């Protein structure tokens, strides 16, 4: 466990050794999901705040707080506006984060189950609680699914903003959850609701990326990157790819910074990220050139340098093809515009070359997931989008599954009302009483990634290879002993039968040392 360094002897020439993970490309992942709540079929009015409190009754009775940590190391929280929230325990692999996220769904499902039983005693046998893993309610209020990545401190925030944000906006081509709007369909849930690109504040504006003051790690070594721009996914592939491809890009950025060389992402910045986000979200072809770059020439030079391939066998013709791309220099003269797909291909090409050069270090950056497999699937996904082959992605990408289902529905019933489509959109995200997503799984349309046995275990067991193991172990023992305690991401605090506290600063450290053993002994 790294020692906390006294700031008085910090300096550029400091000889203080870094923690092992500071020099590696390993990463801590976290997903925080805010859920939406509604009730239908009740015999009398019932507001979501009331229902959320009912959901959390078992949590409240045990911990006297609507913010509690569970034996699997995760955090359960009742958020502002009555959005129940689940934050996954620290994982050092995207697959583990996925499993924890699915355990979060099941945890929420069970809380709703007991609340619905109680509700039916007072509000009629037909009262039905819907818990939505999505990002917008029917009135346009939005709420989030946020990712956390531990990033090495030496990467300046402006660098992250410039180099990561274009990736985060365009990855929505395969991570977007889709949304039925009043007049059509969009790829993302929240393009209409996100404004500033990067900010340290989350109060009034809605930034896409920020960093948090509390890294929940050694602040001299790491910062916690908090990504706001991301939809809540039901597709397990989307959750995996969201986390894993972002990891690959962060590895490139960190290494370039460490070595003092260009990453290859320097020229990717968008002139107007919000506008780019909206344009991408509205383009169902996934190929229209609608994004304005800060420096199109530099970007094109980068594409030549890295040989960013647009499509297999596809020539980069000027002009607008039926199933091709609109390139700069086309007949409309819209020079300097790119498609989100072109941007993604560039990120892919840069990461691909990086992995050729740093394959060994990358292979050991994730304990369970193969970076090479992620890279290959990323490429296969982009190629399918380039061909317009949505069917190939139907089982992997939420917006595509929804869109193809809606198109089939409209083909069967051209007069179907929009309200029905909006209902289907919502049902897709209803993890308690929805039927659509389960049907897609059952009929082999939507693909599973995580094993059910692992998800079941993750309900009660934290990841074994991160700090979550220590937190989870403490909580489990404390509950069994009937002790009074609190904790947060970096502290374990015993109150009764003894008063003791332990600081856990290193999220990569799952080792129960003497201090931890002593704490448990006092329960």
């Amino acid at each position, binding site marked *: 466990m790294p020692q906390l360094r006294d700031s008085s002897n910090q300096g550029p020439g400091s000889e203080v050794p870094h923690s092992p993970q500071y020099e590696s490309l390993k990463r801590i992942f976290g997903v925080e999901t*805010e859920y939406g709540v509604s009730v239908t079929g009740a015999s009398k009015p019932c507001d979501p705040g009331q229902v959320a409190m009912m959901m959390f009754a078992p949590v409240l009775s045990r911990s006297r707080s609507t913010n509690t940590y569970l034996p699997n190391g995760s955090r359960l929280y009742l958020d502002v506006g009555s959005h129940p929230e689940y934050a996954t325990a620290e994982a050092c692999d995207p697959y583990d984060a996925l499993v924890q996220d699915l355990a979060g769904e099941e945890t929420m499902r069970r809380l709703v189950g007991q609340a619905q039983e109680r509700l039916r005693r007072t509000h009629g046998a037909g009262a039905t609680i819907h818990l939505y893993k999505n990002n917008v*309610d029917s009135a346009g209020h*939005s709420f989030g699914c946020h990712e956390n990545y531990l990033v090495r401190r030496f990467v300046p925030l402006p660098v992250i903003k410039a180099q990561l944000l274009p990736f985060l906006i365009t990855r929505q081509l395969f991570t977007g959850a889709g949304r039925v709007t009043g007049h059509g369909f969009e790829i993302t849930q929240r393009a209409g609701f996100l404004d500033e690109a990067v900010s340290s504040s989350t109060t009034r504006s809605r930034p896409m990326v920020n960093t948090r003051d509390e890294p929940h790690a050694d602040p001299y070594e790491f910062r916690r990157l908090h990504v706001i721009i991301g939809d809540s996914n039901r597709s397990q592939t989307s959750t995996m790819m969201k986390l894993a491809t972002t990891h690959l890009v962060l590895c490139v950025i960190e290494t370039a910074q460490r070595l003092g060389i260009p990453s290859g992402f320097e020229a990717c910045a968008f002139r107007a990220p919000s506008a780019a986000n909206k344009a991408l979200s509205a383009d169902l072809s996934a190929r229209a050139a609608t994004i304005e770059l800060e420096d199109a020439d530099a970007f094109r030079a980068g594409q030549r340098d890295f040989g960013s391939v647009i499509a297999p066998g596809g020539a980069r013709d000027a002009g607008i093809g039926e199933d091709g791309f609109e390139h700069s220099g086309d007949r409309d003269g819209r020079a300097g515009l790119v498609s989100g797909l072109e941007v993604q291909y560039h990120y892919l090409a840069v990461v691909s070359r990086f992995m050729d050069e740093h394959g060994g270090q990358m292979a050991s950056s994730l304990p369970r997931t193969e970076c090479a*497999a*992620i890279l290959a699937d990323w490429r296969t996904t982009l190629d399918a989008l380039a061909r317009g082959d949505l069917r190939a992605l139907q089982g992997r990408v939420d917006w595509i599954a929804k869109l193809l289902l809606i198109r089939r529905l409209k083909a069967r019933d051209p007069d179907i009302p929009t309200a029905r489509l909006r209902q289907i959109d919502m049902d897709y995200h209803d993890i308690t009483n929805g039927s659509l997503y389960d049907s897609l799984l059952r009929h082999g349309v939507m693909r599973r990634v995580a*094993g059910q046995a692992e998800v079941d275990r993750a309900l009660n067991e934290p990841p074994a290879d991160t700090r979550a193991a220590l937190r989870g172990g403490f909580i489990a023992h404390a509950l069994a002993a009937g002790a009074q305690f609190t904790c947060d991401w970096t502290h374990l605090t015993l109150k009764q039968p003894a008063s003791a506290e332990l600081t856990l600063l290193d999220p990569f450290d799952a080792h129960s040392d003497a201090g931890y053993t002593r704490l448990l002994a006092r329960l």
Partner: protein
Amino acid sequence: MPQQFSQHYTSDQVSGQPEAQDGLRRRTTDSAQAESDALDAVLDDISSTLEHDAERYVASFVQKGGQ
């Protein structure tokens, strides 16, 4: 011929074997028909479970925004 996706991401082949649903997706009419059939089956499933009053269902979901 379209490329194939990896079957799964983990090198752990023993425990927690994911239920891999896909393999090579050949662009045959049979395959396209099967996919339509699957979507039809899904739509038939939900037609009986979706609440009848769609507008009321949609309107029931209103909450203040989150952080």
